[in-house]
C-alpha cells in the first residue's frame, strides 16, 4: 500500500517535471549563451536602476538650482548638473523610466495589433487579407522616420499637451511597427494552416477561435517573442531620435533622447560632455543589450531563422 502511494508520488513529480519541459529546455539552451545572458543582465540592471534608483537619490529631477549650473561631475553630483542645475544622474534615471516604458508599451501595442491582424489575414485570407495587407504595405512603403517626423510635427502644430505626448509617441511607434510583425505572423499562419494537424482540427470539428488561439498562435509565439524583444530596442531608439529633434516627448519631462539634445549646442558639446554622454551611453547600452539578448533568444526559440 505504501509502495503504491510512493509510486503515485513518483508519477506526480514526473508530471510536474514534464509540464515545464518545453520551457525548461529553451531556458537551458539560453543559459549556455553567455553573451545573451549578459545582455539580459544589462537590461535588468537598467530597469532596476531606472525604476528603483530615483528613490535613493537626494535630488528630484525637476528641481532647478541656478547656483549649480553646468557643474562637472563631483561627489555631490556624480554625473554633474545641467544648465538648470539639475542632477544629471537623477534625470538619466527618470528619463530611463520614460524611455523604457515607451519602448515596452509601444512594443506590446504593436505586437498586439500585428499578431491579431496578421493572424486574421493569414487565417481567413480573402478580402480581410487583402485589406489588412494593403494597409500594411502602404505603411511600409513610407520610410518610418519621416512618417514619425510628420506625426511629431502635427502634434506640435495641434499643441497637444506635453504630458499626453508620451502616450501619443507610444501610439505612433506602434503604428509604424505593426506592419512588419503582421506580415510575418501572416506568413507563419499561411504555412501552418496547411499542416496536417490543422486538417486534424478540421476533422475534429473545432471552432475557428480554438483553431486560431490554441493551435495556430502558440506556434507563432516563439517567433513573436523574438521579434518583440528586438522591437523594444528599435522603439527606444526611435523615441530617442524623435525626442532629440524635439518632436517626441517634450521637456521638462526627461527622456534619454531629449537629454542628448544638449549636444546640439556646440559649447555644451565641447565643454560639458557630462550633459550628453550619460544619456547617450544609456541608450547605447540598453539597445545593444536588448539586441544581443534578442539574437540569443532567436537562436534558441527559432533556430531556422538566421539573419
Amino acid at each position, binding site marked *: 500500500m505504501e509502495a503504491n502511494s510512493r509510486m503515485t508520488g513518483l*508519477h506526480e513529480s*514526473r*508530471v510536474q517535471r*514534464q*509540464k515545464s*519541459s*518545453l520551457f525548461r529546455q529553451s531556458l537551458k539552451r539560453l543559459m549556455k549563451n553567455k553573451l545573451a545572458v549578459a545582455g539580459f543582465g544589462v537590461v535588468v540592471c537598467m530597469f532596476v536602476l531606472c525604476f528603483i534608483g530615483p528613490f535613493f537619490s537626494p535630488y528630484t529631477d525637476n528641481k532647478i538650482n541656478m547656483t549649480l549650473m553646468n557643474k562637472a561631475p563631483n561627489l555631490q553630483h556624480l554625473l554633474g548638473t545641467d544648465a538648470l542645475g539639475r542632477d544629471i544622474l537623477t534625470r538619466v534615471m527618470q528619463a530611463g523610466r520614460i524611455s523604457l516604458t515607451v519602448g515596452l508599451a509601444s512594443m506590446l501595442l504593436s505586437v498586439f495589433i500585428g499578431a491579431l491582424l496578421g493572424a486574421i489575414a493569414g487565417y481567413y485570407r480573402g478580402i480581410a487579407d487583402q485589406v489588412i495587407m494593403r494597409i500594411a504595405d502602404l505603411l511600409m512603403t513610407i520610410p518610418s522616420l519621416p512618417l514619425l517626423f510628420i506625426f511629431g510635427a502635427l502634434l506640435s502644430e495641434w499643441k497637444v499637451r506635453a504630458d499626453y505626448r508620451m502616450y501619443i509617441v507610444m501610439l505612433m511607434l506602434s503604428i509604424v511597427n505593426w506592419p512588419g510583425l503582421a506580415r510575418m505572423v501572416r506568413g507563419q499562419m499561411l504555412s501552418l494552416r496547411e*499542416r*496536417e*494537424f490543422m*486538417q*486534424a*482540427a*478540421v*476533422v*475534429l*470539428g*473545432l*471552432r475557428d477561435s*480554438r483553431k486560431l488561439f*490554441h*493551435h495556430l498562435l*502558440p*506556434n507563432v509565439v516563439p517567433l513573436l517573442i523574438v521579434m518583440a524583444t528586438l522591437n523594444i530596442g528599435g522603439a527606444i531608439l526611435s523615441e530617442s531620435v524623435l525626442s532629440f529633434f524635439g518632436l517626441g516627448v517634450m521637456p521638462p519631462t526627461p527622456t534619454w533622447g531629449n537629454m542628448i539634445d544638449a549636444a546640439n549646442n556646440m559649447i555644451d558639446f565641447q565643454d560639458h560632455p557630462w550633459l550628453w554622454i550619460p544619456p547617450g551611453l544609456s541608450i547605447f547600452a540598453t539597445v545593444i543589450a536588448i539586441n544581443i539578448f534578442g539574437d540569443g533568444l532567436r537562436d534558441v526559440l527559432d533556430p531556422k531563422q538566421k539573419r
Partner: protein
Amino acid sequence: MSEALLEVNHLKKYFPVTEGLLNRTVGQVKAVDDISLTLQPGETFGLVGESGSGKSTVGRTILRLTEKTAGEVKFKGQDIHSLSSVELRLLRPQMQLIFQDPYSALNPRVRVGDAIGEALLDHGLCSRHEVRELVLESLDACGLSAYHIDRFPHEFSGGQRQRIGIARALILNPDLIIADEPVSALDVSIQAQIINLFSKLQRSKGMAYLFISHDLSVVEHLCSRIGVMYLGSMVETASRDELFHSPLHPYTKALLSAVPVPIPRLKRERIVLKGDIPSPANPPSGCKFHTRCPFAVEVCKAQTPVFRDAGGGHFVACHLV
C-alpha cells in the same frame, strides 16, 4: 438491408491544372473519377491501390476536407457536401480520420491530454472536470499510460503517436473512422500492434472503418469487403474471401500475385505489369488499365467498361469478365 452508414455515389474530384499569369485552366487531374461505395454500420471496407490511384483523395473528399467536383456523399442519409459549415461542424465528431503520418498530425505545442480532450470540450460533449477521466479512459483503450497525458508529442515514438491519433478520434465515439494508410509510416512490428488495436476497438465499440491502404496483407487481416482502385476509378469490389480467392479483374490478379508469401520454395505465377501508372491528368481512353493489361483487346481501348455485378455482390469493371 438496413440503411447504409455511408453511401458514396459517383464521386468525382478533379483538380484543375493551371498555367500562366492568369491561372488559366489547361487541364484536369482526375484524382477520383466516379467512385461508388457503401458502408454498413460496423463494417470494415478496405480501399487498396498503388500510389497515386486516388485512395487518400477519396477519404478526404468523403470528409469534405476537399470539395467534390461531382457526385454525392451521404452519411446517415445526410448529404455531407450540401451541409452548411455549422451543420457540418456538429456532424464532425461522428466521422473521424486517422492520418498517415503520425508525426505531422499532432500539433507540437499541444499536450497529448489537451489534444485528445479538446474536441469533447469544444463540442460541449462533456464538462470540464469529466474530461480528464474520459481522456484517461481513451488513452487506456489505446494502450497508452496515464502519465502520458501531460507530455508533448515530440516525446513519443511513431507507434505511440499513432495511438494518440487513434485515441483522439476514439474519444468522440465516432460511427465511422476513415483510416488513411494509418500504418504505412510505421515499422512492421508496430504495424501489427496498431492493426490489432484497430480490430480490438472495433469489437468493443462497433464503429465502421474505411481502411485505406496499399498493403494487401493488412487489408486482408482487417477488412470484410475490399475495393481495388486504379487511376481514380474502382476496378473491383468484393468480399475479402471472394477477392483473395477468385479475383476477376486482371489488375487485382496482378496485385495479388505480388503479395509475398512466407513459403520460400513455393513456385507461383507472377503477373508483372509493364510500365508505370499513367498520369491521371491524361488517362488512357476506354479502360484505363488497357495500357498495362496483359489481356487487353481492341474493345478495351475504345470503350469504358461498366462497373457491374458479376454475381453475389462481386463488382468488377472489365470487358473480359
